[in-house]
């Protein structure tokens, strides 16, 4: 079975590309000159299947599936090295954030990566207490990632515990009900 190695315009969804470029922080996406400074600055590009420069090119043209299926958006550690080096002032890290959200919303959860799991667990913790219980967050995430990860997390927890750096039951916020209510209303709930 032969597969073509180049992309045709008709594979793209330009409407989606335009929509991404209109999101807060992504306005300058169309200004990209494909210089590659971002890929050079990125400490994680060596692990990426599609480098940041190519992600920008694919995203603005609307190659939605390629972008949202890529490992790149999950490997981005949000260190802002690319955004700082971009001669066109593109907030590349914010573009990556937007693409991660697009991927989560559209069900492109890469099974191999615990990163969306972290974001989901983070969300759940914050909704229930207003703060992040570090230990439980790490543990719940490790449970989802497999036994090796769980063992590693528990070993780490033990080291931290011995030095008084592990809080098992952190205090949540006091005005929790009002906070939760405000969050619900801000999201258009009842």
């Amino acid at each position, binding site marked *: 079975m032969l597969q073509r190695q180049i992309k045709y315009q008709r594979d793209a969804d330009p409407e989606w590309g335009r929509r991404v470029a209109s999101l807060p922080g992504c306005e300058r996406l169309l200004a990209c000159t494909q210089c590659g400074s971002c890929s050079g600055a990125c400490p994680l590009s060596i692990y990426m299947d599609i480098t940041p420069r190519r992600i920008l090119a694919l995203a603005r043209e609307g190659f939605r599936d390629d972008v949202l299926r890529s490992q790149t958006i999950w*490997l981005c550690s949000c260190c802002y090295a690319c955004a700082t080096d971009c001669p066109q002032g593109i907030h590349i890290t914010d573009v990556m954030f937007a693409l991660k959200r697009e991927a989560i919303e559209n069900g492109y959860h890469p099974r191999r990566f615990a990163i969306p799991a972290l974001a989901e667990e983070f969300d759940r913790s914050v909704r229930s207490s207003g703060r992040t219980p570090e230990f439980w967050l790490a543990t719940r995430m490790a449970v989802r990632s497999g036994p090796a990860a769980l063992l590693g997390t528990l070993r780490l927890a033990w080291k931290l515990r011995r030095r008084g*750096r592990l809080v098992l039951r952190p205090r949540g916020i006091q005005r929790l009900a*009002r906070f939760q209510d405000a969050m619900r209303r801000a999201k258009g709930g009842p």
Partner: protein
Amino acid sequence: MGATSSAKRPEGYLYYPGCALKGTGIAYEESLLALFRLLGVRLEELRDWNCCGATSYMSMDEQSSSLLAARNLGLARQMGGRDVVAPCSACYLALRKCNDYAARYPAFRDRVNGFLDSDMLPHQPAVRVRHPLELLYTEVRPERLRERAVRPWPGGPVACYYGCQAVRPYAEVDRAHNPTRMDELLQAAGVPTVDYPLKTKCCGATHAGTLHDVGLRLVTILLKEAARRGAQAMVVICPLCQLNLDAYQGEVRREEPSVPELPILYLPQALGWTLGASARSLGLQRGIAGGALLRRWFNARTEAEVHG
């Protein structure tokens, strides 16, 4: 302090600890409070603060993330709108970014204000978000640390590691490309520093927990280079950097036995020591890596050594 205290605001600052400084980063809180007490700068903890909405949350749900940051700023307004000091780089950036977006995007501002109304929190006045490094450099000043340092540094030279989100993207805490303020503060206080070209290279953030091998690799690179440059410890300004460099060092050494034990200190731990704070008040017993070095450098005997 007399003549040098003109830069100090009498009312002090609001202190936003964030989740890490009450847990894995407790030594950062302990040492920061001890240092500021010694410097006579008042820090008052923000009442009923909530999670800052940092990085991983932004990936999931930008809207909730920004509302979390906004609530903290609303609480700060309620307490008089003093500057908010956020020591965790991720917290600092989340709060700083919320201010920036509210100024740049009207739709964002409206959503935030609507949320603040539901939570009965004020929209005004504007609250400035500060990082302790910037505060120490611009308001306390290196000269004051030089005057106030009473103890010799008992350890070897240190590598200053600035990490990412404190200096990027806003570059208000220090320059984005070649930050030097931490080095300047430490040198003024008598702590020798080495040139460390990886000072702003990413520590991997939460990757050590999610993409373990990738995260570990980044940590290994940072530790190896610090040792190669002659550092015997590293100094950091973020609890996640500290955790990554400190807690995974044993694992790094299993793969790279050449990496020596490097204690990972918080900036206020190192500065607080030179200003005469006790090892315990600075949380210096809480480090995982280089425990023997920490005990050799910071103990009852070295605590008693004071400049003549």
